[in-house]
Each structure stands twice: as structure tokens, then as C-alpha cells.
């Protein structure tokens, strides 16, 4: 009896999350068909999906594993660059769907590889130290990509971290990454539909992971590392598993993001982006996957919606952040909210409808 009820609870909660994503997709499609979608909003659709994936994947590290990572944009960056390189070099040589699929796979795998390389030494640390090292990782990636010149000609690949001239490339060669200018002339490929499919894929993998043997092991490390080890959890393995999974999806989100624009520069993936993603996670509720989805979507659209009051845009954005934070986190406000809700419920109870709601 108990088991059935419990299983249903987590499954039901997950279904609501998927329902929200699919509902959002349908509403946007209808609005778009009716011509009600402003161009600024439709331009935000792919970034929304990208940020949702980033927030959900970061929540795996911050909320489920319980380690603060400030370098999520770094993984997004390596994913974006590797995926975009695959896309631009394969463009026209293989069918577009295959090129796209490969670029997402490569972006995810490369980011995951970086997750492993960074994770092995970094996960020995915890708390503030881990946060600082991941922050440094993000900055290193940004600066390395900013100084990276990559191209190819008939003699093969050429790479330099100084300038274009020192690549010794044939003048007829093709430039792939041009230092601070990044990758230009990308054929746009990301669509809202692809974005939503990737969001659903991310949610499926991460929610299923959380509600499994491995997910419980990860959560137990968050709650009490010493106790987790004492019941036989290999904490290095599960910390790495969470960290790498998180990085893989950050990489995929990076590819999705970069293929939405015609150019890709390393500067985009800086400290601010990492913090922005963390804000989504904290605002949506640490450990609350559905909260991350909603917070990422709303906070990505909000600055666009506030364009009408352009001068006060960032001011209102900041106020919204503070108000939401107080509303969702302050113990007094949470208690007050609960009282109000209970009041409404008890008033509704005698009615037949209230039962259906509950």
C-alpha cells in the first residue's frame, strides 16, 4: 500500500513537470500560428530552452549532490565550441539532421570529459573551496577560448594561442576559431522544437537518475557524507557521476545556444552567466527540478517583457529577484503562505469540488 502511494507521488510530480513543458510548447505553437508572438519573444525561445537545461543540470550538482559549482558556463562553453566546430565543418557534407545530432553528441561528450578532468581533483574539496576552483575553471576556459586560433588547410589542423599569423596556415585554409572573434558564419540550426525535445530529454535523464539507486546515493552524500560512506557508498564515484552528468547537459545546452546565433564568442560564457544559472537554481528552489524549469523560463523572458520600461528594467528585475526570494524562502512568509492556503482549503472543504482538488 505504502509503496504504491509513494511511487505515485514522485511519478505524479514528474508528470506535472513534463506537462508544464509540453503545455508551454503547445501554447507557444498556438500563439505563433495566430501571429501573436512578438519577434523579441520568439527570439528568446531557444535561449529559454537552453537556460532551462542549464538550470536543471546545475541543480543536479547544487541541489542533489549539494556542492556549489560556479563554473557551469565553462562546461557550456566547451560544449558550445566543440559542438559548433562539428556542425560547421560537417555542414553540407552530411545530412543536416546527422550533423546536428553529432554536434549535440560531441558537445555533450566533450563537456562531460571536462567534467571528469575537473571533477577528479576538485571533488576532493567541498564547500567554499570547491566553489572557488569551479569559478577559476570557468574563467580559465573563457580566457583560453578567447585566445584560441584554430583552422585547417591542406596540410592539416593548425592551432595557436598567440595570434592568427603564428598558426602558419596556408592562406587558402579555413579559419574555425578566430581568437576573441570566436566562430563566425554559423548556419543557424537550433529551433524551439529541438530545444523542447532536449529539455524533455534532460528532464527524463535527470529525474530518472534522481529517483534511482544512484540518485539516492548522490542525495545521501549531500545529507551526510560520513554516514553515506559508512553504509557502503563509494562517494568519489557518485560525486563524479553527478558532476559529469551535470556537465554533459551543460555542454548540450551550450550547443543549442550557440547554434541559435550566427556567431559564437567565448566572452558570452563568463562568470556572469554561471551566476545567472545559479540564480535560476536558487530562485526555483535548491533541489527542486520543476522550480528550476519555471525560474529559468520566467527570468529569461522577464528582461524582454520589461523593455517597455527600459530605463527601470534592471531595477525591476532586481526587485523581482528579491521579492521572489523572500516569498519562497523566508520562514515567516512561508508560514504566512501556509496559513492562507490552509484557510482557503478549510473553507472549500464542505463543497464537493474541494475533494476533487485534493
Amino acid at each position, binding site marked *: 500500500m505504502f*509503496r504504491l502511494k*509513494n*511511487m505515485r507521488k514522485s511519478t505524479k510530480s514528474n508528470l506535472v513537470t513534463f506537462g508544464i513543458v509540453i503545455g508551454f510548447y503547445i501554447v507557444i505553437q498556438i500563439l505563433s500560428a495566430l501571429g501573436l508572438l512578438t519577434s523579441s519573444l520568439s527570439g528568446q525561445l531557444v535561449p529559454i530552452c537552453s537556460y532551462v537545461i542549464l538550470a536543471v543540470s546545475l541543480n543536479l550538482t547544487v541541489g542533489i549532490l549539494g556542492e556549489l559549482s560556479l563554473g557551469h558556463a565553462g562546461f557550456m562553453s566547451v560544449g558550445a565550441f566543440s559542438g559548433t566546430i562539428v556542425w560547421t565543418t560537417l555542414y553540407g557534407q552530411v545530412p543536416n539532421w546527422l550533423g546536428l545530432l553529432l554536434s549535440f553528441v560531441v558537445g555533450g561528450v566533450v563537456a562531460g570529459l571536462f567534467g571528469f578532468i575537473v571533477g577528479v581533483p576538485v571533488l576532493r574539496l567541498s564547500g567554499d573551496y570547491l566553489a572557488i576552483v569551479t569559478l577559476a575553471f570557468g574563467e580559465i576556459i573563457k580566457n583560453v577560448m578567447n585566445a584560441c586560433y584554430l583552422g585547417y588547410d591542406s596540410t592539416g589542423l593548425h592551432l595557436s594561442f598567440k595570434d592568427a599569423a603564428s598558426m602558419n596556415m596556408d592562406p587558402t585554409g579555413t579559419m574555425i576559431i578566430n581568437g576573441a572573434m570566436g566562430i563566425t558564419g554559423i548556419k543557424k540550426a537550433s529551433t524551439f522544437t529541438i530545444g523542447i525535445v532536449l529539455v524533455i530529454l534532460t528532464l527524463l535523464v535527470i529525474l530518472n*537518475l534522481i*529517483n534511482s*539507486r544512484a540518485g*539516492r546515493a548522490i542525495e545521501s552524500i*549531500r545529507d551526510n557524507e560520513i554516514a553515506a*560512506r559508512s553504509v557502503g557508498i563509494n562517494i568519489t564515484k557518485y560525486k563524479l557521476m553527478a558532476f559529469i552528468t551535470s556537465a554533459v547537459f551543460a555542454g548540450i545546452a551550450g550547443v543549442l545556444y550557440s547554434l541559435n546565433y550566427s556567431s559564437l564568442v567565448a566572452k558570452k560564457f563568463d562568470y556572469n552567466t554561471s551566476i545567472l544559472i545559479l540564480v535560476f537554481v536558487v530562485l526555483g528552489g535548491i533541489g527542486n527540478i520543476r522550480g528550476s524549469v519555471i525560474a529559468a523560463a520566467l527570468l529569461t523572458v522577464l528582461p524582454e517583457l520589461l523593455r517597455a520600461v527600459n530605463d527601470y528594467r534592471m531595477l525591476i528585475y532586481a526587485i523581482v529577484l528579491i521579492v521572489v526570494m523572500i516569498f519562497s524562502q523566508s520562514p515567516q512568509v512561508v508560514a504566512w503562505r501556509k496559513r492562507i492556503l490552509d484557510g482557503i482549503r478549510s473553507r472549500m472543504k464542505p463543497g464537493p469540488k474541494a475533494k476533487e482538488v485534493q
Partner: protein
Amino acid sequence: MALLEVSNLGIAFGGLQAVAQLDLKIEKGHLYGLIGPNGAGKTTVFNMLTGVYTPTEGNIVLDGKDITGKSPDLISKAGVARTFQNIRLFNDMSVLDNVKVALHNQIRYSMWTGILRLPAYREKEHEMDREALRLLKIFDLDKEASLKASQLPYGKQRKLEIARALATNPKLLLLDEPAAGMNPNETAELMNTVRSVRDQFGIAILLIEHDMNFVMGICEEITVLDYGRVIAHGDGKSIRNNPKVIAAYLGGD
């Protein structure tokens, strides 16, 4: 051969010799007590037996296998489980999940089985639920299975720790002050529980406890530590009358 054989075990933190020359023999299915004044090194012994600390000398042999200095997760796999003096539950997880985490190495399936929800996932999860509920029932916790561990009252949290430790299918269970903070009724109930756990699971239990009624009531053999060294060993009666033990507890020359 005894289940656990500890010989000449010692650990020094810098210049401080916390435990020295400790010998301990634990037979299958028996109840042992480890007592001593505060700071005698009892919990340090537990931490060495479970791999939290690496001993600086001596060795620990469990069931013929040397587990000295192994990592805690390997020692757990080898068959030593423990509870903690200051309760360490997975507070934000449900009572049921606390036990299911501890079944980690008993009922296994791969990460991919979980992510892809292969048929084995449902089957193994059901098996875990059944086993976890069976353990919770022994401690009368099955009705609280869906609560968060932090929502349990203190006494039940202590019981949940024991249930969780048993889920790892141990050969040896270490209880660190299981009766701390309990009233006499709860302590008496706990004594029965500990005894019945030993009988049902056929495992050896080594416990640290300050409540002498508890220790004398259920332990078949008692080791007394003082300043990191064994000062006495024997059954309850001989310990009670040992002048060294009395001096250690009450002071004297």
C-alpha cells in the same frame, strides 16, 4: 577463529597517542561492551574499525580478511556497520529512502537501468521497498516510512540508524551510545531490541554505552578503556569489582 581480531591497534594524532596496544576478539553472535570515562578513546576505536581513521599501528582482521586502513565503503562491504554518537541520518530523505540507501550494495542495478527505466528497475525497486519495510517494521518505524528522517522524534531516529546499519547486511554491528538521551523505559525497550536483533540476525554487536545498567544488562563481555589503553576485560561482575575500573571512573590512586 574469531569473527573480528584486533591486535596491537593504535593511533596517534601528532604527539597524542589516542589509542594504544588494543587487542580485541569478537565472536560471532555475541554481545560486547566497550566502556570507559569520557575521552578514553572509545569512539576513536569505532572510527578505526570502520575506516574513518587509519590506524598508525596494529591490524584489524574481519572473518580472516585484513581490513586495516581500508576505506569506509569497503569496510561496509566487508561487513561492518555502525551507528553514530551524534545521530547522522540522511535528514532530507524519507525514512524509507534512508534504509534504501543502505541497501545499495545488497540490491544492485546499474545507473543506466535507472535512467532508461529498464524492466529490472521496477523489479529491484520493489525488492528494495519490501526489504526496507521489513527492516523498518522490526523497529516499529514502518508507519513513518514516508516522513522525512528529520521529522522523527529523537528515540526513533536512533532506531532508524540501527535499521539503516542492518540494511548493509553486516557481520558486526557497532553501536555508539545507542541509549544516549533515552529515559529508563526507552532504554529497557532498546535493550530488548538490541538482544532480538542479535538473535534474529545472528550477528556480533559491539556497543559503547555510558548507561551501566544497559551495559551490564546485555553485554556478555566488557572491555574497559582508559587513556586509550585497555585496563580491564571480562564479564559484568568482574568488571564491576575491578579496582582499576573503579579508580578510572571515580578517581583515586
